[in-house]
């Protein structure tokens, strides 16, 4: 104990520096978790809450609607991970290869821009373009092809989410990889050039392997948010025709919990979602550590 106090005393400046961040996490992330107890209670505004044990979980798991939203969440998240995750990596590699600095800055500015638009605005833009009589379908019709129901067809809508996510976030997410690329020693590239490596070979055999630990870290962190399939995105593009394939856990919790006032039931659904997220983080961490020797910690 004395040793610990001595150690803290030695590094007190560092501890003081970390204090605001620590307080932030305690106040806004850890303390609110105590509210999860509501999943096991019936909420009362006047008087004490009533302890009901696993009642809300029983209702949740006996509801076919819940399993449908769970399936939708997993499918949409999986599609985003599979098809979106590699795009920022690929984009950062491409941007890194641009030799003209002015053009490079221009490209970066353009691809970062959609990140700053809210999902409401993005939904408005995409509806204008992709609705049945929107600009894209007018172009399709111009070539005498039949209109495509991008937003009201169950087969198309999830792909719209994936492409929309790529359009909005790929540029912004590439920053982290670009920063990692900047850290790679130029001596490695120079040695490769002397050995006669082409630009493609340098990219494949130097840049990509050097990015491995960053990719693994980002992948594990992304998996932690696996169950967050994108409330704002889905909510703004949801319509009656596709509700069964796009209704995700977050929209379900919002509707049942906040709109219909079933707070305890919604907390149970939310807690379940959080537990799945934690399991995914730990599983991926241990798998990554076993396969590549690198994990989250």
């Amino acid at each position, binding site marked *: 104990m004395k040793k610990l106090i001595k150690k803290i005393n030695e590094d007190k400046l560092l501890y003081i520096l970390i204090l605001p961040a620590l307080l932030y996490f305690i106040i806004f992330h850890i303390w609110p978790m105590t509210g999860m107890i509501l999943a096991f209670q019936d909420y009362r505004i006047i008087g004490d809450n009533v302890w009901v044990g696993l009642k809300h979980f029983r209702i949740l798991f006996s*509801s*076919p609607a819940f399993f449908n939203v769970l399936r939708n969440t997993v499918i949409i998240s999986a599609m985003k991970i599979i098809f979106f995750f590699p795009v920022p990596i690929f984009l950062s590699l491409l941007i890194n290869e641009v030799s003209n600095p002015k053009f490079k800055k221009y490209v970066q500015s353009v691809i970062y821009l959609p990140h700053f638009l809210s999902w409401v605005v993005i939904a408005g833009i995409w509806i204008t373009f992709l609705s049945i009589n929107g600009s894209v379908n007018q172009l399709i019709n111009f070539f005498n092809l039949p209109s495509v129901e991008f937003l009201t067809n169950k087969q198309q809508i999830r792909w719209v989410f994936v492409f929309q996510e790529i359009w909005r976030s790929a540029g912004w997410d590439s920053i982290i990889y670009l920063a990692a690329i900047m850290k790679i020693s130029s001596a490695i590239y120079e040695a490769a050039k002397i050995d006669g490596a082409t630009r493609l070979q340098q990219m494949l055999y130097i840049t990509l392997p050097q990015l491995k630990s960053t990719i693994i870290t980002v992948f594990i962190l992304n998996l932690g948010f696996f169950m967050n399939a994108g409330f704002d995105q889905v909510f703004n593009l949801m319509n009656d025709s596709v*509700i069964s394939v796009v*209704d995700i856990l977050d929209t379900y919790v919002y509707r*049942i919990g906040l709109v219909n*006032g*079933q707070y305890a039931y919604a907390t149970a659904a939310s807690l379940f979602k959080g537990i799945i997220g934690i399991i995914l983080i730990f599983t991926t961490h241990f798998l990554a550590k076993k396969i590549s020797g690198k994990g989250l910690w």
Partner: protein
Amino acid sequence: MKKVLSLIVIVSLILILVPLGLKAGEPVKIRLVMKDELPSDPIVINYYDLLEKGLAREGIQVEIELIEMPAGNYAEKLNLMLLSGDIPDIIYFQGGDKQIADQGLLEDLTPYIESSKYIKSILGPHNIKRMENYPYLLWIKPLTAKVPVIRKDWFNQMETSADLIENPSIDNYYAFLKELRDQDLDGKGNPTYGVTVAGKMIELDSIFDQAFGNTSTWLKNENGQFIYCRVTNNEKEKLAFYHKLYAEGILDPAYLTKKWDTKEKVFYENQVGVISGTAGKVIDIYDGKMKKANGDEASLMVLPPAIGKAQGYTPVDVSKESRGIAISVLSKHKDIAFRILDFLASPQGQMIDRLGFENEHYQVEDGKIYLTEKSQQWFARFWEPLTFEAARPLATPLLGEAAADSLNRVSYYYTEDINILIPEEYVAKWDAMVNLYKEYSSDIITGKRPLADFDQFVAAWYKAGGEEITKYANKILK
């Protein structure tokens, strides 16, 4: 003796005032929460200042403290505020009140209304029924059914108009909407479509539901049992009709992705002939915007509901008010809170609430009230009974021709809905069942599923909880 009397008076005053925590002459603080009413907004400040002065003239000394709500969905933010324990005296609800009432947090307003000076005399028949069923929420407004509107100049040019007015049958409506699709009424090839809605078919249902026999949410079948109207043959026939409108390009093919703003936009841009809007002020706004976009000749007119098995706009749900004002049971000043609401129903209160500010929204000349152009921007925060009794006679009508006609028509076609309040334990199931209907109905309308799949929907609906809810409804409605 004098000393004794003085002592009694002093003790009485202490007994009356100390529990209230008041000093004599000090106004009572009433906390109020209302949608879109920001305490920093000069119009809002002015309004509540006028209200406080008006109440003071009636001997009610109050200071109204307006609660600022964070931006976003009002019902959601309000419920979070209430659940956190911050409960104002007067609360405006726009949904989400049932859960709060179920927890015993809302005052039963029945005794207050019975002993009220003004409110009881301005209640509409629908308000009375709703208060009988659910006495926690008060909302004295005209019936809020949606009514279809069209440009009057277009209507007068059309060949099928006379038939529609004479006999608004489903066939005549079809011919009318078809003509709208086919005619070039603005010389630029418009309108492209006969009718559009903002994502939900409820707006089209307001014209056709009753004509197909859906006269209430729960219908009595030949065995005397109540069944949900969306799983009946009436509904099947109606969906077949909607599909016909969609397939023939009469119904806007992009209706599913339309929001309220894009729906209005295509209407003012003449791409669509008919849209539906809430009777009263909303129709007045549509009328004003349409005239601004296309000139005074483009004023709107209201269309009748289709006639078939029955005739009427959406049946009026009298199970409860869907929005309205409540008083918290925890309020220390419930009586004063209700006296504020009662004052708003008085001629003086109505002058403030319905007309706005003198010399800004209205002017008084020769003892009469003349509305200014700015009056279009004013809306009543509280009560809007059908008959407006102001302290002075009104020289200009409160609503335009179309809006006034919309209210009259809604009253004329008034029919009561037969419905139940979904109990807490069925909320999750009901949500799934409603979604099932939304999906099947939109798929049938847009042709993604054949009409024959309607029977599949009915089976799925009963399996998803319909059996239980139908049993429950029959228990409640017997």
